Protein backbone atom coordinates (compact mmCIF):
# COMPACT_ATOMS: atom_id res chain seq x y z
CA UNK A 1 0.00 0.00 0.00
CA UNK A 2 1.32 3.45 -0.81
CA UNK A 3 0.52 6.73 0.78
CA UNK A 4 0.92 9.74 -1.51
CA UNK A 5 2.58 11.90 1.09
CA UNK A 6 5.39 9.41 1.75
CA UNK A 7 8.05 8.36 -0.71
CA UNK A 8 9.51 4.87 -0.89
CA UNK A 9 12.75 6.18 0.56
CA UNK A 10 10.93 7.53 3.61
CA UNK A 11 9.21 4.23 4.07
CA UNK A 12 12.49 2.34 4.03
CA UNK A 13 14.28 4.28 6.72
CA UNK A 14 13.93 3.23 10.31
CA UNK A 15 15.88 4.11 13.38
CA UNK A 16 18.23 1.29 14.40
CA UNK A 17 16.13 0.82 17.56
CA UNK A 18 13.02 0.30 15.45
CA UNK A 19 14.87 -2.14 13.22
CA UNK A 20 16.11 -4.02 16.28
CA UNK A 21 12.56 -4.39 17.60
CA UNK A 22 11.05 -5.28 14.24
CA UNK A 23 13.78 -7.72 13.26
CA UNK A 24 15.90 -8.78 16.23
CA UNK A 25 17.85 -11.09 13.92
CA UNK A 26 18.57 -8.74 11.03
CA UNK A 27 21.95 -8.25 9.44
CA UNK A 28 22.88 -5.07 7.50
CA UNK A 29 25.63 -5.42 4.92
CA UNK A 30 27.28 -2.83 2.70
CA UNK A 31 27.85 -3.52 -0.96
CA UNK A 32 31.15 -5.25 -0.17
CA UNK A 33 29.58 -7.67 2.25
CA UNK A 34 30.91 -5.96 5.39
CA UNK A 35 28.62 -6.19 8.42
CA UNK A 36 27.37 -2.70 9.23
CA UNK A 37 24.99 -3.63 12.04
CA UNK A 38 22.94 -6.52 13.35
CA UNK A 39 19.95 -7.15 15.57
CA UNK A 40 20.31 -7.93 19.32
CA UNK A 41 19.32 -11.60 19.08
CA UNK A 42 21.84 -12.23 16.33
CA UNK A 43 24.23 -10.33 18.60
CA UNK A 44 23.66 -12.99 21.26
CA UNK A 45 24.63 -15.66 18.75
CA UNK A 46 27.87 -13.82 17.94
CA UNK A 47 28.58 -13.21 21.61
CA UNK A 48 27.98 -16.87 22.42
CA UNK A 49 30.67 -17.84 19.91
CA UNK A 50 33.01 -14.92 20.78
CA UNK A 51 32.71 -13.52 17.29
CA UNK A 52 33.36 -9.93 16.32
CA UNK A 53 31.40 -9.58 13.10
CA UNK A 54 33.45 -8.24 10.21
CA UNK A 55 33.01 -9.75 6.80
CA UNK A 56 29.82 -11.62 6.03
CA UNK A 57 31.56 -14.49 4.26
CA UNK A 58 33.95 -15.01 7.19
CA UNK A 59 30.93 -15.50 9.43
CA UNK A 60 28.61 -17.56 7.30
CA UNK A 61 28.64 -20.19 4.59
CA UNK A 62 25.72 -19.71 2.19
CA UNK A 63 24.11 -23.12 1.73
CA UNK A 64 21.26 -21.87 -0.39
CA UNK A 65 21.27 -20.51 -3.05
CA UNK A 66 24.44 -22.35 -3.97
CA UNK A 67 27.56 -20.76 -5.40
CA UNK A 68 27.43 -17.51 -3.41
CA UNK A 69 30.75 -17.05 -1.66
CA UNK A 70 32.05 -13.63 -2.63
CA UNK A 71 30.83 -10.05 -2.25
CA UNK A 72 30.36 -9.75 -6.00
CA UNK A 73 27.72 -12.46 -5.92
CA UNK A 74 25.76 -11.05 -2.97
CA UNK A 75 23.03 -9.77 -5.24
CA UNK A 76 22.21 -13.39 -6.10
CA UNK A 77 20.69 -13.66 -2.61
CA UNK A 78 18.17 -10.90 -3.20
CA UNK A 79 14.59 -12.08 -2.95
CA UNK A 80 15.65 -15.69 -2.46
CA UNK A 81 15.01 -18.03 0.41
CA UNK A 82 18.43 -17.95 2.01
CA UNK A 83 19.99 -20.64 4.15
CA UNK A 84 23.18 -19.92 6.09
CA UNK A 85 25.45 -21.93 8.36
CA UNK A 86 27.45 -20.21 11.04
CA UNK A 87 31.11 -21.09 10.54
CA UNK A 88 32.03 -20.76 14.21
CA UNK A 89 31.06 -23.39 16.76
CA UNK A 90 30.83 -27.16 16.44
CA UNK A 91 27.07 -27.35 16.21
CA UNK A 92 27.01 -25.58 12.78
CA UNK A 93 24.04 -23.38 13.65
CA UNK A 94 21.70 -23.08 10.70
CA UNK A 95 19.79 -19.88 9.98
CA UNK A 96 17.28 -19.11 7.30
CA UNK A 97 15.85 -15.89 6.05
CA UNK A 98 15.33 -13.38 3.31
CA UNK A 99 17.69 -10.86 1.73
CA UNK A 100 16.65 -7.57 0.14
CA UNK A 101 18.71 -4.86 -1.47
CA UNK A 102 18.33 -1.42 0.09
CA UNK A 103 17.14 1.58 -1.82
CA UNK A 104 19.85 3.23 -3.91
CA UNK A 105 21.90 0.04 -3.85
CA UNK A 106 23.43 1.10 -0.56
CA UNK A 107 23.65 -2.40 0.76
CA UNK A 108 21.67 -5.46 1.76
CA UNK A 109 19.29 -6.26 4.58
CA UNK A 110 19.00 -9.89 5.71
CA UNK A 111 16.26 -10.90 8.11
CA UNK A 112 17.10 -14.25 9.70
CA UNK A 113 15.45 -16.83 11.91
CA UNK A 114 16.45 -20.06 13.68
CA UNK A 115 13.86 -22.10 11.80
CA UNK A 116 13.29 -25.56 13.15
CA UNK A 117 16.39 -25.29 15.36
CA UNK A 118 14.71 -22.69 17.55
CA UNK A 119 14.35 -24.97 20.60
CA UNK A 120 18.05 -25.83 20.63
CA UNK A 121 18.97 -22.20 20.07
CA UNK A 122 16.75 -20.99 22.92
CA UNK A 123 18.33 -23.57 25.18
CA UNK A 124 21.93 -22.93 24.13
CA UNK A 125 21.67 -19.12 24.19
CA UNK A 126 19.22 -18.85 27.14
CA UNK A 127 16.94 -16.71 25.01
CA UNK A 128 13.81 -15.10 26.43
CA UNK A 129 10.61 -13.75 24.92
CA UNK A 130 12.29 -10.35 24.64
CA UNK A 131 14.68 -11.84 22.09
CA UNK A 132 11.87 -12.49 19.63
CA UNK A 133 9.67 -10.06 17.74
CA UNK A 134 6.04 -10.26 18.89
CA UNK A 135 5.15 -11.39 15.36
CA UNK A 136 7.53 -14.33 15.64
CA UNK A 137 5.79 -17.64 16.44
CA UNK A 138 8.87 -19.01 18.24
CA UNK A 139 7.20 -18.90 21.66
CA UNK A 140 4.13 -20.70 20.32
CA UNK A 141 6.47 -23.26 18.80
CA UNK A 142 8.16 -23.80 22.17
CA UNK A 143 4.75 -24.07 23.80
CA UNK A 144 3.72 -26.71 21.28
CA UNK A 145 6.91 -28.70 21.71
CA UNK A 146 6.30 -28.92 25.45
CA UNK A 147 2.59 -29.57 25.09
CA UNK A 148 3.36 -32.35 22.63
CA UNK A 149 5.92 -33.93 24.97
CA UNK A 150 3.46 -33.80 27.87
CA UNK A 151 0.72 -35.41 25.77
CA UNK A 152 3.12 -38.05 24.48
CA UNK A 153 4.13 -38.89 28.04
CA UNK A 154 0.48 -39.36 28.98
CA UNK A 155 -0.17 -41.49 25.91
CA UNK A 156 2.87 -43.63 26.58
CA UNK A 157 1.72 -44.18 30.17
CA UNK A 158 -1.77 -45.04 28.95
CA UNK A 159 -0.34 -47.53 26.46
CA UNK A 160 1.74 -49.17 29.18
CA UNK A 161 -1.31 -49.51 31.41
CA UNK A 162 -3.38 -50.92 28.54
CA UNK A 163 -0.61 -53.33 27.63
CA UNK A 164 -0.42 -54.58 31.21
CA UNK A 165 -4.18 -54.97 31.37
CA UNK A 166 -4.14 -56.84 28.05
CA UNK A 167 -1.45 -59.25 29.26
CA UNK A 168 -3.34 -59.86 32.50
CA UNK A 169 -6.58 -60.48 30.60
CA UNK A 170 -4.82 -62.80 28.18
CA UNK A 171 -3.23 -64.69 31.05
CA UNK A 172 -6.65 -65.00 32.67
CA UNK A 173 -8.23 -66.18 29.44
CA UNK A 174 -5.64 -68.92 29.06
CA UNK A 175 -5.54 -70.11 32.64
CA UNK A 176 -7.63 -72.59 34.60
CA UNK A 177 -8.47 -70.54 37.68
CA UNK A 178 -8.64 -73.45 40.14
CA UNK A 179 -5.26 -75.02 39.40
CA UNK A 180 -3.37 -72.24 37.62
CA UNK A 181 -2.70 -74.68 34.78
CA UNK A 182 -3.41 -73.70 31.18
CA UNK A 183 -6.98 -74.23 29.90
CA UNK A 184 -8.35 -75.82 26.75
CA UNK A 185 -8.02 -72.59 24.77
CA UNK A 186 -4.32 -72.28 25.66
CA UNK A 187 -3.82 -75.94 24.81
CA UNK A 188 -5.36 -75.65 21.35
CA UNK A 189 -3.34 -72.57 20.55
CA UNK A 190 -0.13 -74.27 21.66
CA UNK A 191 -0.89 -77.31 19.46
CA UNK A 192 -1.59 -75.04 16.49
CA UNK A 193 1.70 -73.31 17.11
CA UNK A 194 3.71 -76.55 17.32
CA UNK A 195 2.06 -78.09 14.26
CA UNK A 196 2.50 -74.86 12.34
CA UNK A 197 6.20 -74.74 13.18
CA UNK A 198 6.64 -78.44 12.47
CA UNK A 199 7.88 -79.10 16.02
CA UNK A 200 7.40 -82.69 17.12
CA UNK A 201 5.53 -83.35 20.36
CA UNK A 202 3.89 -86.05 22.46
CA UNK A 203 0.28 -85.71 23.57
CA UNK A 204 -0.82 -87.19 26.94
CA UNK A 205 -4.47 -87.51 27.89
CA UNK A 206 -4.75 -88.08 31.62
CA UNK A 207 -7.94 -88.98 33.50
CA UNK A 208 -7.85 -89.22 37.28
CA UNK A 209 -9.07 -92.51 38.69
CA UNK A 210 -11.33 -92.62 41.78
CA UNK A 211 -11.58 -88.80 41.84
CA UNK A 212 -15.36 -88.96 41.90
CA UNK A 213 -15.22 -91.00 45.13
CA UNK A 214 -13.04 -88.35 46.80
CA UNK A 215 -15.48 -85.64 45.74
CA UNK A 216 -18.54 -87.60 46.81
CA UNK A 217 -17.26 -88.84 50.18
CA UNK A 218 -14.99 -86.00 51.34
CA UNK A 219 -16.64 -83.04 49.63
CA UNK A 220 -15.75 -80.45 47.02
CA UNK A 221 -13.08 -78.80 49.15
CA UNK A 222 -11.17 -82.07 49.24
CA UNK A 223 -11.76 -82.48 45.48
CA UNK A 224 -10.37 -79.03 44.78
CA UNK A 225 -7.40 -79.76 47.00
CA UNK A 226 -6.66 -82.96 45.08
CA UNK A 227 -6.90 -81.16 41.73
CA UNK A 228 -4.37 -78.58 42.94
CA UNK A 229 -2.05 -81.33 44.16
CA UNK A 230 -2.32 -83.05 40.77
CA UNK A 231 -1.44 -79.75 39.06
CA UNK A 232 1.62 -79.50 41.25
CA UNK A 233 2.70 -83.07 40.43
CA UNK A 234 2.26 -82.54 36.70
CA UNK A 235 4.23 -79.31 36.82
CA UNK A 236 7.08 -81.03 38.66
CA UNK A 237 7.20 -83.98 36.27
CA UNK A 238 7.32 -81.83 33.12
CA UNK A 239 9.68 -79.17 31.77
CA UNK A 240 8.74 -75.50 31.84
CA UNK A 241 8.63 -75.52 28.04
CA UNK A 242 5.94 -78.24 28.10
CA UNK A 243 2.24 -77.45 28.37
CA UNK A 244 0.03 -78.81 31.13
CA UNK A 245 -3.69 -78.08 30.84
CA UNK A 246 -6.81 -78.97 32.74
CA UNK A 247 -9.55 -79.48 30.16
CA UNK A 248 -12.41 -80.91 32.22
CA UNK A 249 -13.36 -81.80 35.82
CA UNK A 250 -10.66 -84.44 36.30
CA UNK A 251 -9.22 -84.47 32.78
CA UNK A 252 -5.76 -83.20 32.01
CA UNK A 253 -3.70 -82.88 28.84
CA UNK A 254 0.06 -82.63 28.64
CA UNK A 255 2.13 -81.65 25.63
CA UNK A 256 5.77 -82.63 25.77
CA UNK A 257 7.47 -80.82 22.94
CA UNK A 258 10.52 -81.83 20.90
CA UNK A 259 9.86 -85.53 21.48
CA UNK A 260 10.15 -88.00 18.63
CA UNK A 261 10.13 -91.49 20.12
CA UNK A 262 8.28 -93.45 22.77
CA UNK A 263 11.31 -94.70 24.67
CA UNK A 264 11.30 -92.18 27.45
CA UNK A 265 7.61 -91.32 27.34
CA UNK A 266 6.47 -94.37 29.28
CA UNK A 267 8.93 -93.74 32.14
CA UNK A 268 7.55 -90.19 32.44
CA UNK A 269 3.99 -91.49 32.42
CA UNK A 270 4.89 -94.09 35.03
CA UNK A 271 6.49 -91.44 37.26
CA UNK A 272 3.35 -89.31 37.01
CA UNK A 273 1.08 -92.22 37.87
CA UNK A 274 3.35 -93.25 40.78
CA UNK A 275 3.20 -89.71 42.19
CA UNK A 276 -0.60 -89.57 41.78
CA UNK A 277 -0.99 -92.85 43.60
CA UNK A 278 0.70 -91.59 46.78
CA UNK A 279 -2.19 -90.93 49.22
CA UNK A 280 -2.81 -87.21 49.84
CA UNK A 281 -3.67 -85.79 53.22
CA UNK A 282 -6.49 -83.25 53.30
CA UNK A 283 -7.18 -81.90 56.79
CA UNK A 284 -6.58 -85.29 58.33
CA UNK A 285 -8.52 -87.18 55.66
CA UNK A 286 -6.70 -89.48 53.26
CA UNK A 287 -7.48 -89.02 49.57
CA UNK A 288 -6.51 -91.88 47.33
CA UNK A 289 -6.51 -91.46 43.57
CA UNK A 290 -4.61 -92.72 40.60
CA UNK A 291 -4.45 -91.87 36.93
CA UNK A 292 -4.84 -93.41 33.49
CA UNK A 293 -2.90 -92.08 30.56
CA UNK A 294 -3.15 -92.36 26.78
CA UNK A 295 -0.26 -91.18 24.64
CA UNK A 296 0.26 -90.38 21.00
CA UNK A 297 3.12 -88.76 19.09
CA UNK A 298 2.88 -86.13 16.40
CA UNK A 299 5.56 -87.94 14.40
CA UNK A 300 3.08 -90.80 13.86
CA UNK A 301 1.26 -88.65 11.36
CA UNK A 302 2.09 -87.44 7.89
CA UNK A 303 0.30 -84.16 8.56
CA UNK A 304 -0.78 -83.99 12.21
CA UNK A 305 -4.40 -82.96 12.76
CA UNK A 306 -5.44 -81.75 16.20
CA UNK A 307 -8.76 -83.63 16.17
CA UNK A 308 -7.14 -86.89 15.09
CA UNK A 309 -4.40 -86.60 17.70
CA UNK A 310 -6.94 -86.04 20.47
CA UNK A 311 -9.07 -88.95 19.26
CA UNK A 312 -6.07 -91.28 19.17
CA UNK A 313 -4.78 -90.23 22.59
CA UNK A 314 -8.32 -90.80 23.89
CA UNK A 315 -8.41 -94.25 22.35
CA UNK A 316 -5.14 -95.11 24.10
CA UNK A 317 -6.53 -93.66 27.35
CA UNK A 318 -9.63 -95.83 26.99
CA UNK A 319 -7.37 -98.81 26.57
CA UNK A 320 -5.53 -97.94 29.84
CA UNK A 321 -8.85 -97.79 31.68
CA UNK A 322 -10.09 -100.97 30.11
CA UNK A 323 -6.89 -102.74 31.17
CA UNK A 324 -7.52 -101.83 34.81
CA UNK A 325 -6.60 -98.15 35.28
CA UNK A 326 -3.45 -96.73 36.90
CA UNK A 327 -1.43 -97.29 33.75
CA UNK A 328 -0.30 -95.65 30.51
CA UNK A 329 -0.93 -96.85 26.95
CA UNK A 330 0.74 -95.72 23.79
CA UNK A 331 -1.45 -95.34 20.75
CA UNK A 332 -0.69 -98.02 18.19
CA UNK A 333 -1.21 -97.41 14.51
CA UNK A 334 -4.22 -98.91 12.77
CA UNK A 335 -3.96 -102.74 12.89
CA UNK A 336 -3.32 -103.30 16.66
CA UNK A 337 -5.84 -100.63 17.71
CA UNK A 338 -8.41 -102.19 15.47
CA UNK A 339 -7.98 -105.33 17.48
CA UNK A 340 -8.52 -103.47 20.71
CA UNK A 341 -11.76 -102.00 19.43
Amino acid at each position, binding site marked *: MKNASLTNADMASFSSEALDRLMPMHLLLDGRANVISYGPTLGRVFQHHNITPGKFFDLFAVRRPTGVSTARKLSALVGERVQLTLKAGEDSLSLRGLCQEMAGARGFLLNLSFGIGVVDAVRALSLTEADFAPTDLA*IEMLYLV*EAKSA*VMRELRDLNL*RLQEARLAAEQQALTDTLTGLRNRRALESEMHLLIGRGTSFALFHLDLDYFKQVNDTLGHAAGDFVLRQVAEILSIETRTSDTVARVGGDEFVIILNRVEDYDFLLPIADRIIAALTVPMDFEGQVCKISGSIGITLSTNYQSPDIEVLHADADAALYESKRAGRGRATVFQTAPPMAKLA
Partner: protein
Amino acid sequence: MHGLINRSIQNFLSDSYGPAVWSAVVRQSEIGSDNFEPMLSYPSEQTEAMLNAASETLRRPKNELLEDLGTYLVCHPHLEALRRLLRFGGVGFVDFLHTLEDLPDRGRLALSDLELPEIILLDQGDGHYRLHCAPMVDGAGFIVVGLLRAMADDYGALVLLDHLGREGAYEVLSVHLLDQSYTEGKRFDLALPVGQ
Protein backbone atom coordinates in the same frame (compact mmCIF):
# COMPACT_ATOMS: atom_id res chain seq x y z
CA MET B 1 -15.59 -34.17 29.88
CA HIS B 2 -11.98 -34.71 28.92
CA GLY B 3 -10.27 -37.35 31.05
CA LEU B 4 -7.43 -34.92 31.70
CA ILE B 5 -9.79 -32.75 33.75
CA ASN B 6 -11.32 -35.65 35.66
CA ARG B 7 -7.88 -37.10 36.26
CA SER B 8 -6.69 -33.73 37.62
CA ILE B 9 -9.55 -33.72 40.10
CA GLN B 10 -8.77 -37.32 41.05
CA ASN B 11 -5.08 -36.50 41.60
CA PHE B 12 -5.96 -33.33 43.50
CA LEU B 13 -8.21 -35.25 45.89
CA SER B 14 -5.84 -38.16 46.48
CA ASP B 15 -2.68 -36.02 46.66
CA SER B 16 -4.24 -33.48 49.03
CA TYR B 17 -6.47 -35.67 51.19
CA GLY B 18 -5.17 -39.21 50.74
CA PRO B 19 -6.35 -42.29 48.84
CA ALA B 20 -9.00 -43.10 51.49
CA VAL B 21 -10.85 -39.86 50.72
CA TRP B 22 -10.59 -40.57 47.02
CA SER B 23 -12.08 -44.06 47.55
CA ALA B 24 -14.93 -42.53 49.58
CA VAL B 25 -15.62 -40.04 46.78
CA VAL B 26 -15.65 -42.88 44.22
CA ARG B 27 -18.16 -44.83 46.33
CA GLN B 28 -20.43 -41.91 47.03
CA SER B 29 -20.47 -40.45 43.53
CA GLU B 30 -21.07 -43.88 41.99
CA ILE B 31 -18.75 -43.05 39.09
CA GLY B 32 -17.94 -46.74 38.82
CA SER B 33 -14.23 -46.75 38.16
CA ASP B 34 -11.69 -45.50 40.69
CA ASN B 35 -9.36 -44.30 37.99
CA PHE B 36 -9.74 -41.78 35.16
CA GLU B 37 -7.54 -42.17 32.12
CA PRO B 38 -6.26 -38.71 31.15
CA MET B 39 -6.43 -39.43 27.43
CA LEU B 40 -10.00 -40.71 27.30
CA SER B 41 -13.37 -38.94 27.58
CA TYR B 42 -16.06 -39.31 30.23
CA PRO B 43 -19.66 -38.14 30.64
CA SER B 44 -19.82 -34.65 32.18
CA GLU B 45 -22.23 -35.77 34.91
CA GLN B 46 -19.40 -37.79 36.43
CA THR B 47 -17.37 -34.62 36.98
CA GLU B 48 -20.25 -32.89 38.77
CA ALA B 49 -21.04 -36.00 40.83
CA MET B 50 -17.41 -36.37 41.83
CA LEU B 51 -17.10 -32.73 42.93
CA ASN B 52 -20.34 -32.86 44.91
CA ALA B 53 -19.27 -36.09 46.61
CA ALA B 54 -15.88 -34.59 47.48
CA SER B 55 -17.55 -31.56 49.03
CA GLU B 56 -19.80 -33.79 51.15
CA THR B 57 -17.06 -36.22 52.15
CA LEU B 58 -14.69 -33.47 53.21
CA ARG B 59 -17.47 -31.27 54.64
CA ARG B 60 -16.08 -28.29 52.77
CA PRO B 61 -17.96 -25.90 50.48
CA LYS B 62 -17.52 -26.88 46.84
CA ASN B 63 -16.30 -23.39 45.94
CA GLU B 64 -13.42 -23.62 48.38
CA LEU B 65 -12.44 -27.01 47.01
CA LEU B 66 -12.53 -25.70 43.44
CA GLU B 67 -10.31 -22.78 44.38
CA ASP B 68 -7.81 -25.17 45.98
CA LEU B 69 -7.96 -27.29 42.84
CA GLY B 70 -6.98 -24.26 40.76
CA THR B 71 -4.00 -23.57 43.01
CA TYR B 72 -3.02 -27.25 43.00
CA LEU B 73 -2.91 -27.26 39.18
CA VAL B 74 -0.16 -24.63 39.21
CA CYS B 75 1.72 -25.50 42.38
CA HIS B 76 1.97 -29.28 42.59
CA PRO B 77 5.41 -30.55 41.52
CA HIS B 78 3.78 -33.34 39.46
CA LEU B 79 2.14 -30.68 37.33
CA GLU B 80 5.26 -28.66 36.56
CA ALA B 81 4.57 -29.30 32.84
CA LEU B 82 1.21 -27.52 33.16
CA ARG B 83 2.73 -24.58 35.04
CA ARG B 84 5.26 -24.20 32.25
CA LEU B 85 2.57 -24.34 29.56
CA LEU B 86 0.69 -21.58 31.38
CA ARG B 87 3.84 -19.49 31.73
CA PHE B 88 4.21 -19.51 27.94
CA GLY B 89 1.17 -17.22 28.11
CA GLY B 90 3.22 -14.11 28.73
CA VAL B 91 6.30 -12.37 30.04
CA GLY B 92 4.52 -10.76 32.98
CA PHE B 93 1.22 -11.23 34.79
CA VAL B 94 -0.54 -8.56 32.69
CA ASP B 95 0.57 -10.32 29.52
CA PHE B 96 -0.65 -13.55 31.02
CA LEU B 97 -4.08 -12.07 31.80
CA HIS B 98 -4.41 -10.93 28.22
CA THR B 99 -3.61 -14.36 26.81
CA LEU B 100 -6.26 -16.02 28.99
CA GLU B 101 -8.71 -15.33 26.18
CA ASP B 102 -6.55 -17.66 24.03
CA LEU B 103 -6.75 -20.41 26.65
CA PRO B 104 -9.30 -22.61 24.81
CA ASP B 105 -7.31 -22.28 21.55
CA ARG B 106 -4.06 -23.08 23.31
CA GLY B 107 -5.68 -26.11 24.89
CA ARG B 108 -6.93 -27.29 21.51
CA LEU B 109 -3.48 -26.85 19.99
CA ALA B 110 -2.13 -29.30 22.54
CA LEU B 111 -5.09 -31.70 22.47
CA SER B 112 -7.64 -31.23 19.73
CA ASP B 113 -10.50 -32.64 21.82
CA LEU B 114 -9.74 -30.67 24.99
CA GLU B 115 -12.41 -28.10 25.83
CA LEU B 116 -11.52 -25.34 28.25
CA PRO B 117 -13.76 -22.56 29.52
CA GLU B 118 -14.17 -19.52 27.31
CA ILE B 119 -12.73 -16.46 29.06
CA ILE B 120 -13.29 -12.77 28.24
CA LEU B 121 -11.06 -10.11 29.75
CA LEU B 122 -12.21 -6.54 30.31
CA ASP B 123 -9.46 -4.05 31.14
CA GLN B 124 -11.06 -1.36 33.28
CA GLY B 125 -7.85 0.62 33.68
CA ASP B 126 -5.72 1.33 36.73
CA GLY B 127 -4.92 -2.34 37.26
CA HIS B 128 -8.60 -3.31 37.48
CA TYR B 129 -9.83 -6.18 35.33
CA ARG B 130 -13.02 -8.17 34.99
CA LEU B 131 -12.91 -11.75 33.83
CA HIS B 132 -16.02 -13.38 32.38
CA CYS B 133 -15.72 -17.11 32.42
CA ALA B 134 -18.16 -19.55 30.79
CA PRO B 135 -18.08 -22.43 33.26
CA MET B 136 -17.91 -26.05 32.12
CA VAL B 137 -18.90 -27.17 35.58
CA ASP B 138 -20.83 -25.09 38.05
CA GLY B 139 -18.31 -22.98 39.97
CA ALA B 140 -15.47 -23.30 37.47
CA GLY B 141 -14.81 -19.59 38.07
CA PHE B 142 -13.45 -20.57 41.47
CA ILE B 143 -10.91 -22.86 39.79
CA VAL B 144 -9.81 -19.83 37.77
CA VAL B 145 -9.51 -17.77 40.99
CA GLY B 146 -7.22 -20.39 42.54
CA LEU B 147 -5.23 -20.73 39.35
CA LEU B 148 -4.79 -16.96 38.95
CA ARG B 149 -3.72 -16.60 42.57
CA ALA B 150 -1.02 -19.24 42.08
CA MET B 151 0.06 -17.80 38.72
CA ALA B 152 0.34 -14.31 40.27
CA ASP B 153 2.70 -15.82 42.84
CA ASP B 154 4.60 -17.52 40.07
CA TYR B 155 5.05 -14.23 38.21
CA GLY B 156 5.76 -12.36 41.44
CA ALA B 157 2.69 -10.13 41.08
CA LEU B 158 0.53 -8.84 43.93
CA VAL B 159 -3.18 -9.17 43.12
CA LEU B 160 -6.55 -9.11 44.82
CA LEU B 161 -8.99 -11.63 43.39
CA ASP B 162 -12.70 -12.00 43.93
CA HIS B 163 -15.50 -14.14 42.57
CA LEU B 164 -18.44 -11.79 41.98
CA GLY B 165 -21.02 -14.43 41.21
CA ARG B 166 -22.94 -15.25 38.06
CA GLU B 167 -24.10 -12.96 35.28
CA GLY B 168 -26.16 -14.87 32.77
CA ALA B 169 -24.04 -17.60 31.25
CA TYR B 170 -20.84 -16.28 32.81
CA GLU B 171 -19.17 -16.36 36.17
CA VAL B 172 -17.56 -12.97 36.83
CA LEU B 173 -14.25 -12.44 38.57
CA SER B 174 -12.54 -9.22 39.55
CA VAL B 175 -8.78 -8.92 39.37
CA HIS B 176 -7.03 -5.98 40.97
CA LEU B 177 -3.36 -5.84 40.13
CA LEU B 178 -1.52 -3.87 42.82
CA ASP B 179 2.04 -4.57 41.78
CA GLN B 180 3.22 -6.53 38.74
CA SER B 181 6.70 -7.15 40.17
CA TYR B 182 6.07 -7.39 43.87
CA THR B 183 8.54 -10.28 44.20
CA GLU B 184 11.03 -11.90 41.85
CA GLY B 185 8.59 -14.69 41.11
CA LYS B 186 9.54 -18.16 40.05
CA ARG B 187 12.18 -18.75 37.42
CA PHE B 188 11.05 -19.66 33.94
CA ASP B 189 13.38 -20.73 31.11
CA LEU B 190 11.79 -20.90 27.69
CA ALA B 191 13.46 -24.23 26.94
CA LEU B 192 14.06 -27.04 29.43
CA PRO B 193 17.54 -28.51 29.66
CA VAL B 194 18.07 -31.53 27.41
CA GLY B 195 16.50 -34.69 28.78
CA GLN B 196 13.81 -33.04 30.91
